[in-house]
């Protein structure tokens, strides 16, 4: 449905998107994930024909957006980051305008009525858009994208600024629409992408650093797992006691977290389940185990780390997507070596 090959976009001398390629087949729900300024909106604006591309090729359902923009645009419903609403119009009036603008073939009134019901704005249809709250405006923007029932929906941060109830509603709507639409959705909120998308494309510094089905990605990303035990005890004694549990590779004391209780981070050997061993060891010592939690890095945490990465090679390493296994102690050195390389590549490009 959507084919993007070698897409680059340059604003003056600033390279916003660099050599991005992906392909999305009919019916997929794909999430663009990336920190602010990663290039998500730029890519979406290019797909919808709002911006031109500097290099590469984008086709929607076989129609090139540069060569046959009208046919390509006809197949896309776009909800930009800021819903493009004429605030001096009433909701229905605005949707009628979009209907006329898009030259939709369906019967006008039932089509618009149906969309308004779908996004639950039928009770505000005669109100001026400027008097609507952010959540309702977002929904009117959503309705605008749905007009003409396009095959492809491109939604740029559709839930930003909504309250939790509305977020759930919009997510449910996206899930429902995902059954018969191809959807690209961008967000910098991971849980949102997790909730609705089958496939995730992670974009950082204008490049794709990961593109995989969600399940595979979760597996790949969360290799790092350790346990955190909170025990009422004497810190030093317990540290030694825990280290001697079978299957434990290493234990670090994390300090006092509650009155009389200390936290310990326990790294097990690969594949070993040490939970039973830990609890019986604590019991043996007549101490009390308050909690034992897995400190497996959540996708959220990994993503946060990623946004702090100085460049994409570093980011790939953080996500464990590079194939090179490196010792943890070398990692800092690695950054220093990587940085100049990144710079020379960019200079060469320009």
């Amino acid at each position, binding site marked *: 449905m959507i084919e993007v090959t070698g897409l680059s976009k340059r604003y003056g001398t600033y390279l916003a998107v660099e050599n991005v390629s992906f392909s999305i087949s009919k019916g997929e729900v794909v999430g663009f994930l990336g920190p602010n300024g990663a290039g998500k909106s730029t890519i979406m604006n290019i797909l919808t024909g709002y911006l031109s591309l500097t290099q590469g090729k984008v086709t929607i359902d076989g129609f090139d957006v540069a060569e046959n923009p009208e046919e390509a645009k006809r197949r896309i419903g776009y909800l930009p980051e800021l819903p493009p609403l004429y*605030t001096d119009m009433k909701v229905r009036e605005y949707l009628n*305008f*979009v209907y006329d*603008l898009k030259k939709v073939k369906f019967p006008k009134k039932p089509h618009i009525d149906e969309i308004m019901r779908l996004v639950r704005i039928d009770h505000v249809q005669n109100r001026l858009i400027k008097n609507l709250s952010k959540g309702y405006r977002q929904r009117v923007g959503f309705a605008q994208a749905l007009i003409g029932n396009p095959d492809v929906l491109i939604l740029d941060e559709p839930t930003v600024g909504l309250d939790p109830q509305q977020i759930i509603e919009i997510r449910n709507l996206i899930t429902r629409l995902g059954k018969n639409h191809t959807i690209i959705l961008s967000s910098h909120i991971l849980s949102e992408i997790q909730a609705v998308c089958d496939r995730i494309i992670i974009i950082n510094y204008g490049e794709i650093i990961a593109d995989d089905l969600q399940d595979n990605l979760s597996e790949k990303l969360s290799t790092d797992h350790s346990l955190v035990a909170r025990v009422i005890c004497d810190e030093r004694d317990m540290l030694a006691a825990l280290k001697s549990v079978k299957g434990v590779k290493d234990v670090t004391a994390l300090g006092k977290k509650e009155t009389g209780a200390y936290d310990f981070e326990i790294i097990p050997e690969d594949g070993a389940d040490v939970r039973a061993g830990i609890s019986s060891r604590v019991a043996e010592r007549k101490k009390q185990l308050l909690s034992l939690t897995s400190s497996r890095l959540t996708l959220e945490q990994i993503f946060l780390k990623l946004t702090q990465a100085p460049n994409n090679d570093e980011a790939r390493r953080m996500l464990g997507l590079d194939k090179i296994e490196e010792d943890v102690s070398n990692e800092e050195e690695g950054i220093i070596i990587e940085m100049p390389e990144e710079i020379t590549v960019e200079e060469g490009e320009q």
Partner: protein
Amino acid sequence: MLAVFKREFKSYFTNPLGFVILAIFYFLLGYLFSGYYSMGAPYVEYAVLGIAQILLIVVPAITMRLFSDERRTKTDQVLFTAPVKLINIVLGKFFAAFVLYALGFAPTIIYQIIVSAYVSVNLFYYIYALVGILLFGAALIAIGMFVSSLTESPITSIIFTLVVNVFIMISGGLANGITAPSATTWYTKVWAWIVERFADFVGGMNFLAVLDSFGNQAFSVKDVVYFISITVAFIFLTERSLEKRRWS
């Protein structure tokens, strides 16, 4: 094109702007016509052509929001991602502004009807003057729309358009003020030639002089083509400027 036209035209009347502009037109036309009428010259075409100078100031208010506002509020995203050719969006907006402008002259039809009931007048003079002022307006709207497509704020847009229009207003005087030096040697001759061409160029901007000839009661293809070509050129430039924005 029709959708854009309808929305844009309606938007003039969702705020006071459209009403204020029409009020200015109606007041001035009525004032001028009654003035000429009491002086014993009951010719509607005098009033029609007489408000041209003031229109140079009023028209920028019609065009200031056309594209600048869309860009500021990002509503252009719905226009430019719709399956519509850019030129149709430009034309839709142009005609919305133009129809508002043309409506400003609607009462002159009533004046003409009343006048022809009492005095024998040549209807052609009135119609020709009306054609002239509408073409003149079309050119000003196209220029204003182009300026609007370059800016992101209606205020910047109106100020720049006013600068252009003031230049148009004084171009006749300016052109007369530019005198070529007396030429004796070959290089002063070249210089004199350059200065003369420059004066021609400035003089060529004199919309008001061209408009005056629409009051001369003799049909002139040259004058009609003059305004139409300026209008078409600036509509084209607007389309290019919007297209260029996608590339930067």
